[in-house]
C-alpha cells in the first residue's frame, strides 16, 4: 500500500497523475500561549492506508489529530481532504467530510444498548417522530456482520468488554459514513488478545478501502499494523517512513534521539543506603494488572529516574507511593517504616514530598491565596498551625520565602493563585515541596510545561536536594531529563521495572528499546 513512502515525506503538492491523498497537511502550525504544539507540519496520508503517528508525549500528535477532527483550528497552514482545501471548524464539519475519530476515552452512553449508541444522533425514524429501533438494530447488525467479529446489538454497553466498546465506537463512525478514521491510542486500553482483534478489524477496514490514522506508543504494534509511520518530535515532523523499510531501533531513535544537549550533573555526595523500598507491589483494576509485582528501591542521596512511555503504570505507582491508592499486594517502606497502608498525611509527616503531575488540579487550589497554596500539605504542622489554629504570619513568611527563593512572579501573597501565570503556579508547587525538607521527593514530570530557564532551575533544585541526602524519585517521559540527572535509571513497561541502568551507562536508544517493549526485561537487566 505504501507507495513512494520516503518521497512524500517532503510534503510537495500532489501530482494530478496520482490519486489525491486522503489527508494532506501543509505547513500546519498550532500555538498555545507561547508554546508551539505543531510547527509547520507537512503530512500526507494516502487513500486506503494505515498511517501511524508516533512520538513522545507532548510531541504534538493529539493536537494534530484534534485539528483534523475540527476540535482545534490551525494558526497557519492548510488542511486538504481528498485534494480539496477545507476549513474543519467543528467535528460536525469533519463528519460531513467523512472523517471520524475514536477518542482514547470512549464517548458511549453506558446504559444504552449497542444499537442505540451507534445510531445516537442519527436515529432512523418512523412516522410521527417515533424511533425505529427495529430498523436501527437491523442496520447495526448488518454493519457488525460485515465487520468480522460478532456484536450483539441488544447488549447494553456497560455489560460488554472494553474491546467490544471500542468496536462500537468504530461502528458508530462507519454508520455515519466515515471513511477516514482517526484512532487515538486505541491499544492503550486493550489487553493483548483484544489488540489482535483490533488489528484484524483494522485490516478488514483497510480492505474495504478505509483510511486509518492511528496514534500509538508501542512500536512493535505500529510496525505490525501500519503501512507508513510518521514520527513527530517537539511539534515537528521528523520523517515519514514505510513500515517495511524500518525497525523499532530506527523509529525509537527518531522519536527520542535528538542530539544530547545536556551534560550530566554528577552528585557531590555518594549515594547512601535505601530510603524507599517497594517490594512486589501489585495494583489490579478492571482485571488488568496496572502494577504487576513491581520492585523498586531509591537510596539516600540518589536521583532515581523512572523512564517509560506513559500509561505503563507510572501513575499507579505514584498513587501507591503517595497513599492515594492502597496496593492489592506488596509492601512499601520509607526509611524502615512500613507505609504500605498508611494514609497521605502519615506519609507526608514521615518525610514524603510529592510534586503531582497535574499540578493545577492536584497540587493547588486556584481560588485560594498564594500564601495558602504555599503551605498546602504542610498546613497541619508547626509553624503553620499550632493546636488547630493557623499562624497566618508564618504562612505569609513561607510564601514570601518561596517567592524569593524560587523567583515566583506573584502580584501579592494575598492574591488568589489563579492570578499567577501557569509557569509561576508550577514553581510555587515545586518550591513548596522542596521546602518541606523531605526524606523522599516524588517528582512526577516536574519540568513539563516549563520553559528552558525554569527547567534548568528545577534540575538544579533536584540535584541540590539529592546532595542534601534526599532520595529523589524522578518520573519523566523526557529521556533527556532522566539521562542528565539520574544516578540510576529504571524503565517501567507494562507495570514492571524491565531494566535498570547506572545513570552514566544508560543511552537513549537502549532506554527507547525497553520503553517501547522492543526489548524485554527478561534478557538481562544491567544494574
Amino acid at each position: 500500500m505504501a507507495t513512494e513512502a520516503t518521497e512524500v515525506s517532503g510534503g510537495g503538492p500532489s501530482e494530478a497523475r496520482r490519486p489525491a491523498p486522503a489527508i494532506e497537511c501543509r505547513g500546519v502550525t498550532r500555538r498555545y500561549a507561547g508554546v508551539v504544539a505543531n510547527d509547520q507540519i507537512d503530512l500526507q496520508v494516502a487513500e486506503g492506508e494505515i498511517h501511524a503517528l508516533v512520538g513522545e508525549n507532548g510531541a504534538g500528535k493529539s493536537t494534530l489529530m484534534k485539528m483534523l477532527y475540527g476540535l482545534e483550528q490551525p494558526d497557519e497552514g492548510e488542511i486538504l481532504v481528498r485534494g480539496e482545501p477545507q476549513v474543519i471548524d467543528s467535528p460536525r464539519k469533519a463528519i460531513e467530510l467523512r472523517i471520524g475519530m475514536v477518542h482514547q476515552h470512549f464517548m458511549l452512553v453506558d446504559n444504552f444498548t449497542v444499537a442505540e449508541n451507534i445510531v445516537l444522533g442519527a436515529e432512523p425514524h418512523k412516522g410521527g417522530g417515533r424511533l425505529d429501533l427495529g430498523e436501527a438494530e437491523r442496520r447495526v447488525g448488518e454493519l457488525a456482520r460485515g465487520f468480522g467479529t460478532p456484536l450483539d446489538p441488544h447488549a447494553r454497553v456497560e455489560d460488554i468488554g472494553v474491546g467490544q466498546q471500542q468496536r462500537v465506537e468504530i461502528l458508530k463512525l462507519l454508520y455515519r459514513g466515515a471513511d477516514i478514521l482517526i484512532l487515538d491510542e486505541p491499544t492503550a486500553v486493550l489487553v493483548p488478545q483484544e489488540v489482535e482483534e483490533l488489528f484484524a478489524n483494522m485490516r478488514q477496514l483497510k480492505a474495504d478501502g478505509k483510511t486509518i490514522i492511528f496514534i500509538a506508543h508501542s512500536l512493535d504494534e505500529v510496525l505490525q499494523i501500519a503501512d507508513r509511520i510518521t514520527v513527530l518530535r517537539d511539534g515537528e515532523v521528523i520523517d515519514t517512513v514505510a513500515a517495511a523499510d524500518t525497525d523499532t531501533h530506527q523509529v525509537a531513535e527518531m522519536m527520542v534521539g535528538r542530539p544530547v544537549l545536556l551534560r550530566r550533573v554528577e552528585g557531590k555526595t555518594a549515594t547512601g543506603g535505601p530510603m524507599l523500598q517497594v517490594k512486589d507491589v501489585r495494583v489490579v483494576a478492571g482485571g488488568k494488572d496496572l502494577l504487576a509485582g513491581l520492585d523498586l528501591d531509591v537510596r539516600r542521596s540518589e536521583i532515581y529516574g523512572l523512564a517509560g512511555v506513559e500509561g505503563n503504570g507510572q501513575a499507579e505507582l505514584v498513587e501507591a507511593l503517595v497513599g492515594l491508592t492502597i496496593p492489592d499486594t506488596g509492601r512499601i517502606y520509607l526509611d524502615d517504616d512500613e507505609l504500605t497502608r498508611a494514609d497521605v498525611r502519615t506519609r507526608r509527616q514521615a518525610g514524603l514530598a510529592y510534586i503531582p503531575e497535574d499540578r493545577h488540579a492536584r497540587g493547588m487550589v486556584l481560588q485560594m491565596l498564594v500564601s495558602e497554596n504555599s503551605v498546602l500539605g504542610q498546613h497541619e504542622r508547626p509553624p503553620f498551625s499550632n493546636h488547630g489554629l493557623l499562624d497566618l504570619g508564618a504562612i505569609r513568611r513561607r510564601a514570601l520565602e518561596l517567592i524569593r527563593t524560587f523567583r515566583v512572579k506573584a502580584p501579592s501573597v494575598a492574591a488568589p493563585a489563579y492570578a499567577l501565570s501557569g509557569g509561576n503556579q508550577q514553581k510555587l508547587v515545586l518550591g513548596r515541596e522542596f521546602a518541606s525538607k523531605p526524606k523522599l521527593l516524588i517528582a512526577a514530570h516536574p519540568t513539563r510545561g516549563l520553559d528552558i530557564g525554569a527547567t534548568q532551575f528545577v534540575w538544579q533544585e533536584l540535584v541540590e536536594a539529592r546532595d542534601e541526602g534526599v532520595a529523589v524519585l524522578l518520573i519523566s517521559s523526557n529521556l533527556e531529563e532522566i539521562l542528565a540527572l539520574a544516578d540510576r535509571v529504571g524503565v517501567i513497561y507494562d507495570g514492571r521495572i524491565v531494566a535498570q541502568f547506572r545513570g552514566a551507562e544508560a543511552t537513549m536508544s537502549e532506554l527507547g528499546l525497553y520503553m517501547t517493549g522492543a526489548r524485554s526485561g527478561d534478557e538481562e537487566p544491567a544494574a
Partner: protein
Amino acid sequence: MKVEEKPPPPPEPELEEAAARIPWGQRLQGWALQLLAPAISLLIAAVVGVLVILIVQQSWSDVADVAGAMWSYGLFNRNSVAFILGRATPLIFAGLAVAIAFKAGLFNIGVEGQYAIGALAAGYVGYQLSAPTVLHLPLTILAGMAGGMAWAAIPALLKVYRGAHEVISTIMMNFVANALLLYLLSGVMKDPNQQGSIAQQQTPPIEPSAQVGSMVPFFNSIGFDFRGSAPVTWFFVLAIVAAVLYALTVRRTRFGFELRVLGTNPRAAEPSGIRSNAMVMKAMLLSGAIAGLVALQDVIGIDDRMKLDYIRNYGFTGIVIALLGRNSGLGIVAAALLFSFLDRASSGIGLNTEVPKEVTSIMSGVIILTIVIAYQLVTRMNARRQLREQHDRA
C-alpha cells in the same frame, strides 16, 4: 545547555514589598465587587416590585405609599428593630448551617429537618428535666444541637460509606423528620392538658430554668422603647457569636483551611493529606449542630414550649441567606437582617396601604432568582479583569 551551578540572584526588593500586601485601592475594588452582586440583585427586585404594584394598582401613588410604608413601618415603628433582630436570629443560624456545609462542597438541604429534630430534643429536655438554670439551660441548648447533629449524621454516613448524594438523602430526611414530629407531638410528647387539632399540637410547658430571657429590658435600658412582648431574645447575641466563630473557623483554623480546600478543589485535598471522608463527616455534623439551634429561640425564648408550627421553612430560607451572604459570617448576618426587614416591611404594607403585602414575597423571590446570576456575572467580570491584569504583566 548545562545546569548552572550559580545560586539564583537575590530578588529585587520592590518585588518583595509588592508581594507582601495588596494595595488598598485593589482591596477596596475587591470589596466593591463583593457588594456589587447583592446590589444588582436588590435593584432588580425593587424594579420588579414597582412593576408589580403598577400592574396591580396602576398608580404611581401606590408605589410611593409602599415605599413609605416599608421605610417608616419597616424601620421606624416602635417594635420594628426588635422584630427584625429577633426574626433574623433563626435565619442567621440557618444560613451558617448551610454555609459551613457549602464550604466543604456539600449542599445541606436538610437544615429544615435537622432543626425540627433539634427543637424536639431541646423541648423534651426543657420540660422533662428539672435542674438549676446554670445546668438546665446549657443542657437544653446542647440537646438541640445534638438533635440536629444526629439528624445530619445519617446523610453524612450514607455519603461517606455508601456514596449517597447528600442532596437526595437530606431531602428525604426532611420528610422523615416531619413525620416523626407529627407522631411525637400528637403522641408521647403531647401536652396532656391540651385539646385541639393537630395543627396546634404542642409539648408541655418548658421549665423556667431552661428558658432564655428576652433582650427587651436590655434594649430599653439603652434607650429603646420596645413593648415587653417584642420577640427578641439573647439568642440574637448567640447568633452573632456563632457568626463570628464561623468566620474565624473558616479563615483562621486548620479545620477551616481543610474545609475550603475540600470544597474548592476536592482533587487537591487527598494529595495534601486531607482526609476527605473525615472532613465530610465533620462538616455535616457541625452543620447539623448549628441547624439544631435554628428554632430554639421560638421554643425556649419567645414561647415556652415546642409547637408544630415552629417549622417555618427556616432551613430553605437559610440556603438563600448563605447564597446571598456569599458564605461569609458578616454576609450571612446582613442577608438575614435584610430578609427579616422585608418580612417586617410586608406587615407595614398590609397595615398602611391598599397594596397586597405579598409584594415583599415577590421581591424576596426575585432576589433569590437573580442573586446566583448576579454573582456569576460579577465573577466573570472579575475573571476578565484578572486576565487583563495578567496580560498586562506578561
